[in-house]
Structures are given as structure tokens and as C-alpha cells.
């Protein structure tokens, strides 16, 4: 019972970050701010949701697999966003200035 409550709280927190990420992706003005919203919100959101699944599961082989999945995404997702931001900077994608408006 207490594990179900903890699991629901963790999954709700992760779902909040999962919703905030696409809103930032839609509303922010240029590429660099969008990549800022997308990378961090998505990494933390998936970590919290899968952690809630682990708490719901208990200590089994499935929980170990989900833990490996969390660790893998925590490493690879910042790597992907860093590589894309580096490629965009090398390609000369212009940054947003405050005077331009939206």
C-alpha cells in the first residue's frame, strides 16, 4: 500500500516533467533554448517515471532491467543533446536576441 503511494507520487512528478518538455519545445524562440528545455526535462522525467515503476515492482529481475535502462538513458540523452548543440553551433545557427521579439 505504501509502495503504491510512493510509486504514484514518483510517476506523477515524472509525468509533470514529461509534459513541460514539449511545451518548452513548442513555445521557446530559437534552437538553443529549445534544446535546453528538451534535454533536461526529458532526462529527469523518464528517470522519475521508471523509478516509480521500480518501486511498484519490488526487487526482481525486471526492476534490475529498468535500473539499467535508467542508467543508460541518463548517460546517452545528455550526450545526444550536447552533440546536436555542438553541430548546430558549428553550422552557424543564429541565436535569438531580445530585440527581435518572437
Amino acid at each position, binding site marked *: 500500500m505504501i509502495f503504491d503511494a510512493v510509486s504514484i507520487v514518483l510517476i506523477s512528478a515524472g509525468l509533470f516533467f514529461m*509534459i513541460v518538455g514539449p511545451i518548452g*519545445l513548442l513555445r521557446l524562440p530559437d534552437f538553443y533554448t*529549445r534544446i535546453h528545455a*528538451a534535454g533536461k526535462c526529458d532526462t529527469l522525467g*523518464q528517470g522519475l517515471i521508471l523509478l516509480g515503476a521500480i518501486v511498484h515492482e519490488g526487487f526482481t529481475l525486471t526492476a534490475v*532491467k529498468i535500473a539499467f535502462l535508467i542508467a*543508460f538513458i541518463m548517460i546517452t540523452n545528455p550526450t*545526444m543533446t550536447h552533440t*546536436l548543440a555542438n553541430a548546430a553551433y558549428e553550422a552557424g*545557427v543564429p541565436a535569438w536576441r531580445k530585440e527581435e521579439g518572437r
Partner: protein
Amino acid sequence: MISVFWAVGVVLIVTIFLCLYRVLRGPGVFNKAIAVNLIGTKTIVLLVIIGYIYQRPIFLDIALVYAMVNFGASIAIAKYLKRGTLA
């Protein structure tokens, strides 16, 4: 607890469709690339949630493989956009 996983799955599908707008209309190829990256991460979580809904733990293995394929694809796209070639 199954109803909680159903709700999480439906909300995840709605957020995937929000990202799909940026894939279709995003100005420039980099916006499309980061939106595809975001959809890939959401799909991994959605696969785990589907495995809980239908009580099939085999979906976890699919999620692990999908995470690796997504990582390789994004790194390849970024490298191609940076250097103009994959060599």
C-alpha cells in the same frame, strides 16, 4: 494500479503528438532532429508502460534495444550535420 499506467500511457501519447508539430513544421533541420530525439525517449518510457499494462515483461528488452538504436541514430545524424559526411 493498472488504471494509473493507462493514464500515463495516454498522456505520453498526447505529448508525442505535441512534439510531432515541431518535427513537421520546425524551422531548419536541427529543430526536427531534437524533436525526433525527444519522441524517441518518450517512446522508450511508453514501451515500459505498455509492458506493465499487458503484463508482458518482454517489452523491457524491446525498450533496451530501442534505447541503443535511438542513441546510434541521433549520434549519426549529428555527425552528418556537422561534417557533411559519415566517413
